């Protein structure tokens, strides 16, 4: 009951501040940019001009899986940044403005308070990703070649797990750190550090969350979901839950007002 109240409040808030409109739009834009620009590059170069007369532009042929990988790269940088941006203020902002003082003085359980936020942002991110990948899938099919519905689901689901991790990490820092700016800083720093560590110890860290995109690509090439992808997704989701639980534990021990 109380949890539903909090979830509804979060959903309504993100609806009123138009996040439910612009986030899906931006994700869709990011998802179709690469298929379109890759496909139309010769025409674009041609119409911009500046090429010597008679130049023949030859672009390499891209396989659908390769275009997917490029787009996932785009979503892993700009997409992740957007996810961090929309989530980072959810707790720190309320603490700073003082609204949390009115909310938490009511008999609100901390678990409800934080997990409702977590679920509301996951719903927003997953919905946006669904539409983004759906449109992406459509353009791949008409421009580059066949990509089955199962493959669409594979891309959507497993990349969703990666964004779940990003949301959890952001909420974790939001309940630990005082300022919204620092939340973004620490979250992005952590993701970058993880990617660096994964890169350096790639023979040991087979199942690092950062490998999700690579395994999605591998699965598309192999024509079936590789077992590494399942394990990595499981681990990533496990870490996300762990982050959620520790956010609540840490938040419990903190003072409810900033003074």
């Amino acid at each position, binding site marked *: 009951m109380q949890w539903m109240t909090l979830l509804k409040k979060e959903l309504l808030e993100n609806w009123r501040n138009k996040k439910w409109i612009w986030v899906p739009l931006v994700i869709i834009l990011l998802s179709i940019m690469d298929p379109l620009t890759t496909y139309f590059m010769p025409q674009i170069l041609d119409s911009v001009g500046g090429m010597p007369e008679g130049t023949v532009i030859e672009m390499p042929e891209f396989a659908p899986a390769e275009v997917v990988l490029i787009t996932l790269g785009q979503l892993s940088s700009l997409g992740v940044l957007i996810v961090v941006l929309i989530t980072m203020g959810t707790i720190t902002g309320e603490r700073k403005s003082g609204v949390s003082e*009115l909310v938490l003085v009511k008999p609100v359980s901390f678990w409800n308070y934080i997990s409702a936020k977590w679920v509301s942002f996951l719903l927003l991110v997953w919905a946006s990703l669904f539409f983004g990948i759906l449109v992406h899938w459509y353009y791949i099919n008409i421009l580059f070649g066949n990509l089955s519905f199962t493959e669409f689901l594979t891309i959507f689901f497993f990349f969703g797990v990666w964004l779940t991790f990003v949301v959890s990490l952001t909420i974790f820092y939001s309940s630990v750190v005082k300022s919204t700016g620092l939340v973004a800083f620490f979250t992005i720093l952590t993701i970058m550090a993880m990617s660096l560590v994964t890169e350096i110890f790639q023979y040991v860290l087979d199942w690092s969350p950062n490998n999700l995109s690579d395994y999605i690509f591998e699965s598309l090439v192999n024509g079936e979901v590789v077992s590494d992808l399942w394990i990595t997704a499981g681990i990533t989701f496990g870490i996300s839950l762990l982050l959620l639980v520790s956010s609540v534990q840490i938040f419990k021990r903190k003072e*409810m007002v900033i003074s």
Partner: protein
Amino acid sequence: MTLVKVQKLTKTYGKKTVVNGIDIEFGHHKCVALIGPNGAGKTTTLRMLAGLLKPTSGSIYFESQNKTPDIREFIGYLPQYPAFHTWMTGREFLTFSGKLANLSKEEANKRADELLKEVGISREAQDERISRYSGGMKQRLGIAQAIIHKPKLLILDEPVASLDPIGRREVLILMEKLKEEMTILFSTHILNDAEEISDELILLNDGKVIESGKLTELRKKYQTTVIELQVDDDITKYVDRINNLQAVLNTKIERDILYITSDHLNNARKEILNLVLTENWPVTTFSINKASLEDMFMKVVNS
């Protein structure tokens, strides 16, 4: 019967002690004012009572605590600068608060309706975004959200400090009414407000309770009478005659008004009026003022 009992409550931030071992106790249906200068530790004390800050040491006991461990059920709280979800309407925020306090949807809607009427938020404003509310309306909405679950203890931090005289009056009247249903603990540095509606006073300075008790008792304890005398002449000529009187403690002149302090009102009045009549002084004003709470406050804080 005791509603709240606070013992040796202390809060320190690093080396700074903001609240220093205070003891407070009060019962049901009381209006208790926490008075003190800025920085005395009022807000910190109230926040600890509301469960928003953890005491460094000391204990807070609530009468109903044995039934549920979460004391927040019994407490309504309005901070000094209440911040709302300004994207909600007043009504939405109230139902939201009600449901957080574990009221059912129907109850929350019903209470929100009642309270919007009770605190006087107009029909048009009820369904307007809070971002468009004036300061006074926000304060009244703040009180409404604090009492939506009918708490036993209502804690108000400087409830009238930021309001204009009309808003202030409205809130004081509202508090007067609420007193019948619950205990109100409020902080203020405006002594008139405390004087007007509180039954008990707690004077706080430097994180310590320096005086507390019923208003009438405190008055008696610190009361001195000040007699104001004005004459249609140079007042300095009469000062020595007054000073020689037995019942007069001391005198001071400010802007041609002679203030005479005495701890024995009847005698002082008799002696002065006697002098005035026999010597035929050109008196324009003779008035007796009871020491205000402010004088008392200054006296206690400075002693």
